[in-house]
């Protein structure tokens, strides 16, 4: 095809994966295969799987760090670890879980699922998607470079100055953290941009904004939040690095700087981030739970609005992390009230899940158990959060194990439980095989009991005055017995997680064949094969309701039905449908890029740039800048095949 088209009236066809047209689609979309294909792939399904696997590897690393810390704390006066080692372990545990597991694992789900949920053939920017993964991987490795040297970041994940300043922390520890976080921020930002533009542009015709699954709302909200939050932390870390390496004075009070500026910038980012790592997970539950309750979600619109409202409010509550810093009472009162208001959208979601279960006919699968477990843990974590939102209570409890208990209920409860449930739910779509249900239920009960035995007593320890981040404690304080229970419970929890991983490995090889829609679920991803073909859909589906695969039984009138077998064929190269932002009317035929090495090259060059900065190796930094410029220019070069040039 030498002629570049400007306009086309696309063909509408009836086709399935077995149609001859699908052979053409397959050859259009399939990559090179082998190592070359692996390194250059821009397929959102590949990238999604890589995100999931990498995030789970970081979960294991972070879990091992926690296991060592719990061994140290199991009894009073233990000396398994030195204080310096303990500082690095709790810092890297937090950094790993919060930055390298919690959001990336959700990006994995969203990257894999978004185009399938939306009825599209890829994300808006497939190469940017690959870049976001590679940069995440390299940033994760970067953050661990100094770990084997015993010089890992050691000031906790929120890294307060002045302890993080050079005078008190002269090694490379904090520089690695600062630069690694700026690098990771690039990955998060480009990933978020991709989700936002995908939502605005890539939905199947008819999937108006009020018909998208709640997971889409969750990830969209998280991405918009990240767009506005990540610059705060990238800037804070950059300024800290400048203070440490070039003698600027942003946080140096002796030259007019302000240490509290660090805390403001960090928590202006940090609190929205907390919602970024839970809202998509809540979306997983809002989409998965109704499938197992055999009914639509109760209150779709309130839940979607609550998702957005939570994030909007989340930008106005950061000071509740700083109640003990001596701010004016009037400011603290405002932020305390704002924090308490978040209970409202959270409760909307909780009551909607409870009502869905209550009025549904629950099927007690492993996924269902994990989703219900999540609701229970969310309520407990929410109550402890509400408690610490009150200034006087917070002044008593801040920096104690009560906060550790709260944040683990929130992050494990609202992130890990939905994620594991989500794997049980979508594993058959991703691999074509079901996971083992008996083993799944065992892993749920072991994880659920282990988690509560391990983490609930931390509330009591906190009220009893045990501070967080102490590497050991004397016997006469009486914290020993509860700490032993915490250690044993958390080990039981870890065994439950291991059972889950075991299930994944066994089911990959021996799981029952799933078929297209093993759960009889309602959304578009279940209308295509398991695993989905490389082009996702033989024709672009047309959507007429929130539950396209349940329309027959939801009394939808016959002339207003979604259509999965008939639709736009779009088989002239890699193509998919671009639609309008709100109503999803067909708007443009999008030409999608071929596989490319430029994302990998660009990511490598970025990683080298940051290594150069870390080592003060300016020629390395300059050389990588040149590569970055060349790779970006070649990436952006207008292509006739993408209809970016006509002449």
């Amino acid at each position, binding site marked *: 095809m030498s002629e570049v088209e*400007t306009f086309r*009236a696309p063909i*509408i066809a009836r*086709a399935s994966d077995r149609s001859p047209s699908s052979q053409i689609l397959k050859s259009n979309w399939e990559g090179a295969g082998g190592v070359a294909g692996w390194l250059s792939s821009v397929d959102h399904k590949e990238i999604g799987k890589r995100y999931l696997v990498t995030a789970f590897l970081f979960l294991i690393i972070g879990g091992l760090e926690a296991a060592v810390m719990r061994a140290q704390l199991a009894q009073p006066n233990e000396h398994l670890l030195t204080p310096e080692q303990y500082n690095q372990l709790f810092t890297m545990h937090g950094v790993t879980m919060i930055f390298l597991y919690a959001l990336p694992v959700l990006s994995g789900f969203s990257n894999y699922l978004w185009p399938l949920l939306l009825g599209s053939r890829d994300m*808006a920017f497939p190469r940017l998607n690959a870049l976001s993964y590679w940069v995440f991987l390299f940033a994760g490795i970067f953050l661990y470079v100094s770990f084997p040297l015993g010089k890992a970041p050691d000031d906790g994940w929120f890294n307060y100055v002045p302890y993080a300043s050079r005078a008190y922390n002269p090694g490379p520890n904090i520089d690695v953290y600062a630069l690694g976080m700026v690098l990771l921020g690039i990955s998060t930002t480009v990933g978020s941009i991709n989700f936002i533009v995908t939502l605005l542009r890539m939905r199947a015709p008819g999937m108006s904004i009020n018909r998208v699954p709640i997971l889409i709302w969750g990830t969209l909200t998280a991405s918009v939040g990240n767009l506005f939050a990540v610059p705060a932390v990238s800037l804070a870390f950059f300024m800290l690095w400048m203070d440490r390496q070039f003698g600027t004075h942003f946080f140096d009070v002796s030259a007019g700087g302000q240490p509290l500026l660090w805390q403001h910038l960090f928590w202006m980012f940090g609190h929205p981030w907390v919602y970024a790592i839970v809202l998509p997970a809540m979306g997983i539950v809002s989409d998965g739970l109704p499938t197992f309750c055999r009914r639509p979600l109760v209150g779709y619109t309130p839940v979607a609005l609550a998702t957005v409202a939570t994030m909007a409010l989340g930008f106005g509550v950061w000071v509740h992390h700083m109640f003990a810093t001596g701010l004016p009472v009037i400011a603290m009162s405002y932020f305390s009230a704002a924090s308490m208001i978040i209970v409202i959208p959270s409760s909307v979601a909780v009551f909607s899940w409870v009502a869905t279960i209550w009025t549904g006919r629950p099927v007690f699968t492993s996924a269902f158990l994990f989703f219900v477990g999540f609701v229970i843990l969310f309520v407990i974590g929410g109550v402890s959060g509400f408690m610490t939102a009150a200034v006087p209570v917070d002044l008593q409890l801040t920096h104690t194990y009560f906060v550790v208990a709260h944040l683990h209920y929130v992050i494990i409860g609202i992130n890990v439980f939905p994620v594991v449930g989500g794997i049980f739910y979508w594993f058959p779509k991703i691999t074509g095989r079901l996971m083992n249900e008996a083993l799944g239920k065992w892993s749920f009960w072991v994880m659920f009991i282990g988690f509560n035995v391990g983490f609930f007593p931390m509330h009591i320890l906190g009220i009893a005055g045990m501070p967080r981040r102490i590497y050991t404690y004397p016997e006469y304080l009486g914290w020993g017995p509860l700490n032993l229970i915490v250690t044993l419970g958390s080990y039981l929890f870890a065994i439950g997680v291991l059972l889950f991983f075991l299930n994944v490995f066994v089911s990959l090889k021996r799981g029952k064949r799933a078929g297209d829609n093993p759960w009889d679920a309602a959304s578009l991803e279940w209308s295509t094969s398991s695993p989905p073909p490389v082009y996702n859909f033989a024709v672009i589906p047309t959507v007429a309701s929130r539950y396209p695969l349940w329309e027959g039984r939801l009394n939808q009138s016959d002339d207003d039905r979604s259509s999965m077998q008939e639709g736009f064929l779009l088989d002239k190269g890699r193509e998919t449908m671009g639609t309008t932002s709100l109503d999803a009317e067909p708007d*443009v035929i999008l*030409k999608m890029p071929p596989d490319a090495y430029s994302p990998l090259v660009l990511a490598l060059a970025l990683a080298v740039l940051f290594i150069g900065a870390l080592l003060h190796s300016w020629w390395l930094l300059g050389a990588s800048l040149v590569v970055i410029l060349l790779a970006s220019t070649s990436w*952006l070069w207008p292509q006739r095949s*993408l209809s*970016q040039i006509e002449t």
Partner: protein
Amino acid sequence: MVELGVSRTVLPVGSKAHHASGWWGMLTVIATEATLFAYLLFSYFYIASHAIGAWPPYGMPKLSLAIPCTMLLVAGSFTMWWGERGIDRDNPVRLMIGLVVSAVLGLVFIALEGLEWAGEPFHLTSDAYSSLYFTVTGFHLVHVAVGLLLLMVLFVWTALGYFDAQRHSAVSIGVLYWHFITIVWLAVFFTFYIAPRLG
């Protein structure tokens, strides 16, 4: 496969003006970059509001170079707008003139800014104000430099005859970024040069 017919609506194919995904992508880039500058200026005002003694510590910042700088960037936005209108009318030469003139104005901006840097009585490491001054204007200078590179690349692409009235979304996207750089400068200019005079 059964072909059922042809759509009644005729759709544009590929990157066309605001149909291009890149246009939307650039809007999100601008959103996040604008936020970055908002946090930079927040840091300035935060430190200013806690300052002990005179602020700014070296007296009112001189306007003798800052005002010409501002005019250069604003003029550069207008020349770029004029050039972009050229390609709308299938006139790549007018676009190329617009790109060159805007790039030259940008280059002079960088030179004047460098002159101002060289003339300051303080250094990056003097105190919190000087750190803020060089970092914030430095962030903006880097953006101008990136903008210049964009204009250069667009010039090459225009010279290669890639663009016409129908297809030039790369131009629209690049120009959008160029305008953003101007608008950010206005915010930086107001913060450093005007705001202290209002107090």
